[in-house]
């Protein structure tokens, strides 16, 4: 009997409270984003598609040391070295298989030249599997860039690098 009485109380008095919660939300602003038209701003540390950075004089930072490939838990990076006319080591082939990649960011943490890092771009889906093997030309940031979208790497690590005067 007690159970039944409690059930009555619940249905008559307590459940309307729950309904009120739902009702209240009719007047609230929706939390959702109208995605393709409206986009989230990614937090500074977001790990998206990779980029290969250049120095200010547009030479490539990457020296093909292979540390990123060694750090990669998914074995997604492949590279072959070459030398420029000036005798500097450089990557001849540098490929990242973005299907294998798990976007862990270990390559970025490993790179001693701060050459590779994960940008904020996440919209690179395709229906062609081959197109996910990103080659060096796709990964390198374009030569002439006035805006620098890669602020976060400056903020996170390169500041120390520059103040120590070893910025080449």
């Amino acid at each position, binding site marked *: 009997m007690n159970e039944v009485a409690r*059930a009555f109380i*619940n*249905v008559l008095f*307590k*459940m309307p*409270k*729950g309904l*009120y*919660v*739902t009702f209240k*939300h009719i007047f609230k602003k929706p*939390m959702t984003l109208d995605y393709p038209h409206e986009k989230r701003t*990614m*937090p*500074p*540390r*977001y*790990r998206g598609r990779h980029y290969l950075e250049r120095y200010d004089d547009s030479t490539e930072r990457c020296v093909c040391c292979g*540390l990123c490939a*060694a*750090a990669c*838990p998914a074995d997604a990076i492949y590279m072959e070295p070459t030398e420029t006319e000036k005798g500097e080591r450089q990557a001849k082939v540098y490929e990242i298989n973005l299907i294998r990649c*798990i*976007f*862990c*960011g*270990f390559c970025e*943490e*490993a790179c*001693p030249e*701060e050459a590779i890092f*994960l940008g904020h771009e996440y919209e690179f889906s395709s229906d062609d599997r081959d197109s996910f093997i990103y080659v060096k030309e796709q990964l390198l940031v374009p030569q002439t860039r006035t805006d620098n979208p890669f602020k976060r790497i400056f903020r*996170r*690590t390169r500041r*120390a*690098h520059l103040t*120590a005067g*070893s910025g080449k």
Partner: protein
Amino acid sequence: MATESKTITINMGPQHPATHGVLRVVLELEGETVVKARPVVGYLHTGIERTMESKLYHKALPCTDRMDYLAPMSNNLGYCLAVEKLMGIEVPEKVKWARVCLAELTRINSHLVWLGTHALDLGAMSMLLYTFRERELVLDIYEACGGQRMMSSYIRIGGLAHELPDDFDTRVRELITTVRERMLDYEDLLTNNQIFINRTKDVAVISAEDAINFSLTGPMLRGCGINYDVRKAQPYSGYENFDFEVALGKKGDAYDRYLLRLKEMRESLKICQQAIDGMPEGPFRAHVPGVVLPPKEDVLTKMESLIFHFKIITDGFKTPFGAVYQAIESPKGEIGFYISSDGSNKPHRVRVRPPAFINLACLPKLVEGSLLSDVICAIGTIDIVLGEVDR
């Protein structure tokens, strides 16, 4: 002619929306009553333990994120603590506190998803929308810390991946107030909701004795009133400094476990508050040359650090011969990492004690003799994540 009792066998899953992934339950039914239930697992087997054995210790870390993807930080923490135990690394005080805070946020995250999906299974759709809204706050913190919402890999061997973000404590404080307030709404919606009560009270009951015999842990065990919480029983990562209560149930039914998980969330918020208030200053990584990666600033400026950096990344570190077991209280129960080392730079064997898998084993006990519709409730109340069950 005498009526003949006939049973029929049906498959629930692996594509059933209420089995939380790809669980298949073979049910033998007599009318609407379950005579026999047999969970069939393995549809999501990814060989994570084996994969971890083929990787250097620090490279095996992202695998742990992918086991229980609703509680990535708990898994990271368990694995890192196990390796730290093996190597005898003592992490700085700040790291401990930050880890506790993150692990508790993970508990909130996991319980929120559980609450939403469990209520959804039982027909309360709006719950899911509300809990996922609050979960977004936790995921935002993860994203600000580690760079990704679910596979954060933020807790590393010997410390954290990066310094905590600048606005970490304001964000956590905000989360605490918001979630605390919104939890009142959840209570309004479910606690006294007669439909929810009818579907959960005295459903999926397990006795304390059975719970122990099935070696259940987490809310499944505490729901029967047994006070066992790894955070209290074998404190790790500085949990002994925190003041919190272990939530306990009485009857061991689904409704009890619902109340218990809500209470646990409140306790988690309390722990987060304490962690934020008392967070000491200090480095975010232990200084153990040759084992823990040196800070990036040093790598770029100091030769010695650069050499260690190269060495750790290419070769990992040598571990002492032996085996360790480290258990932590994940949102689902006791998650343990057993690492046996043969002295090389890769684990010889990693074995995970998966709470969800072991808790799932009691499903037949929970549902046999009850109605078909209670199976849904039972699966929900165990709180399984198939990524972890199958590994």
